[in-house]
């Protein structure tokens, strides 16, 4: 049971990096993108379904590994605050940038998306350094690595979703290439997580708690997966929405 819940935690974290990774990557690339509205429109229908993977990660930490949750979050206090503020800025940028007309309003919130995305990538470097016990300075290096991988993943996503368009510098990539860049994007979290697995498993909640969680959550898993697949089927091609 402990191993099952560690598996759920790992899948959610890897999924977050693989999915939200391209949203953050596109955010990072926005200052250098020719067609910003097209680029934001391309990720827009995916963002809500992607960012929620991290909400679920923290939920699973809280429910299945509670003693670890308090220790990890409070132990990484400034980094977690940075991550949250960056996340909030990125989201606010997406929700607000097209709510008023005017070039200055839109470029202000586009900058918020880009800065928030940068803050997210760098904070993840800090989190990875923190959970592996690496010195803080190495966290900056990890952060840059995460940012570069996410940017690559984001660029691949644009080249897949908007092939041969200016937003992707005219490039074109297949779905297979996108799966490849997703695998690369989740490496920074999968590797340390695999190394920490025995320690995390040992910190699981008692079996009474895990049983209740399993009984309620496992029957819903097909629905969770189905909803995610539906998002991809609905928005992988066709007109780019203009709401974000």
């Amino acid at each position, binding site marked *: 049971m402990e191993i099952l819940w560690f598996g759920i935690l790992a899948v959610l974290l890897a999924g977050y990096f693989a999915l939200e990774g391209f949203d953050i990557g596109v955010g990072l690339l926005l200052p250098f993108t020719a067609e910003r509205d097209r680029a934001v429109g391309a990720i827009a*229908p995916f963002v*809500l379904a992607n960012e929620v993977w991290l909400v679920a990660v923290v939920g699973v930490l*809280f429910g299945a590994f509670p003693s670890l949750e308090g220790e990890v*979050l409070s132990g990484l206090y400034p980094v*977690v605050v940075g991550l949250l503020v960056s996340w909030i800025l990125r989201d606010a940028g997406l929700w607000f940038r097209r709510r*008023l007309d005017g070039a200055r309003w839109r470029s202000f919130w586009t900058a918020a998306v880009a800065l928030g995305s940068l803050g997210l990538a760098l904070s993840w470097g800090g989190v990875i350094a923190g959970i592996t016990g690496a010195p803080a300075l190495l966290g900056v290096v990890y952060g840059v690595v995460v940012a570069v991988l996410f940017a690559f993943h984001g660029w691949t996503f644009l080249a897949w979703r908007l092939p041969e*368009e200016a937003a992707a510098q005219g490039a074109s990539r297949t779905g297979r290439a996108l799966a490849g860049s997703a695998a690369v994007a989740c490496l920074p979290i999968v590797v340390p997580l695999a190394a920490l697995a025995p320690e995390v498993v040992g910190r699981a909640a008692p079996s009474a708690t895990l049983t209740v969680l399993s009984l309620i959550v496992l029957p819903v898993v097909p629905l969770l997966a189905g909803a995610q697949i539906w998002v991809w089927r609905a928005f992988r091609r066709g*007109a780019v929405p203009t*709401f974000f």
Partner: protein
Amino acid sequence: MDVLDLARLQFAVTGSLHFLFVALTLGLAPLVAIMNTRYVRKGDPELERMTRFWGQIYVTNYALGIVTGLVMEFQFGLSWSGLTHYAGDVFGAPLAVETLVAFFLESTFLGLWIFGWHKLPKRLHLACIWLVTLTAYASAFWIMVGNSFLQNPAGAVVRGDHLELVDFGALLGNPTLVMALPHVLAAGLLTAGCVVMGASAYQLFRRTAEQAFFTRSLRIGVVTAFAGAFLTSGFGYAQFGFVDSVQPDKWSATPLAGTGLGSMQMIGETMVLLTMLALICVKWLPRWRWAHPVLMLITPLPFIALILGWIAREVGRQPWLIYNKLTVADALTPGLTQGRIMLSFVAFAGVLGLLAVVDYLLIARLVRRGPAVIALGEQPAPQPVLTF
């Protein structure tokens, strides 16, 4: 202020902000879903415009619900790791279920609804907003299960230095939950009803060109507000017996809790009375221009009552975080420094406070501009000509 005061103030500020946005979300979701259903059934373009207009106000409000909610979720681990250590094995379960079973689906289906206009088949698109509503209510249920556990730690026993879950059913049948949940959900309806009513009254007062649109909306708002006020008040009074059975000195222990309760009741009774009068006159109300400023003025009242009710419920359990088990002071993260809590307080309260103001201004602007231009569900522009 010391570290404990700052950590509490941070939770109170972010929690109150979250509550203001979430309550309106909870109330507007079923209204938008009903409008969408009627549109799909009848195909009336006016109903499509209503769904999109109120839907856009709903999703603009939703944005702040998300970002304030993120801070709420992480804050337990950041500032209150004593709580996760002592009671995480019990208290963590409803919160984990909320994120996985409710919010995960809610966020996914909301994305499908917002971006699926003119893309998904109409009936499937409609199913999305109903699933958003359903999962939002499920979210409210699990969060209230968690909150009720703090008021009355049912279903758990102390083993060593922490609580362990022994009876999950007792967690769900908590006496501090059964009447409080419908009370909160009804308060959401009251809030949403008042927003729809107040916004429509504003447009009618300005002699809008959209008479039919806002006449219809005003009536929906009045009916919803009355139903909400009536149910909120009923389930509110129904709580007293349950609360007295587990927290006998809840309202008398601190003056703030008693004052919060009393003021909330006063607003509640005023709202029942006013919305009942509005309901009686609902046929003529759209044409009674003199009454429209009154309807606009009472729009903020449910929001104030929400905060007062929240204060009454949470201040009333002080100094306990988990009633009679764990004090707020003991739940604080050990070794949390003044510098750290100041940093996060300024960051969260400052950023979220500013964004909340921006969001409310945007909503006010949406109301003022009316349904002539609605970004939500616009027909997408044709593909640009490829340059390569």
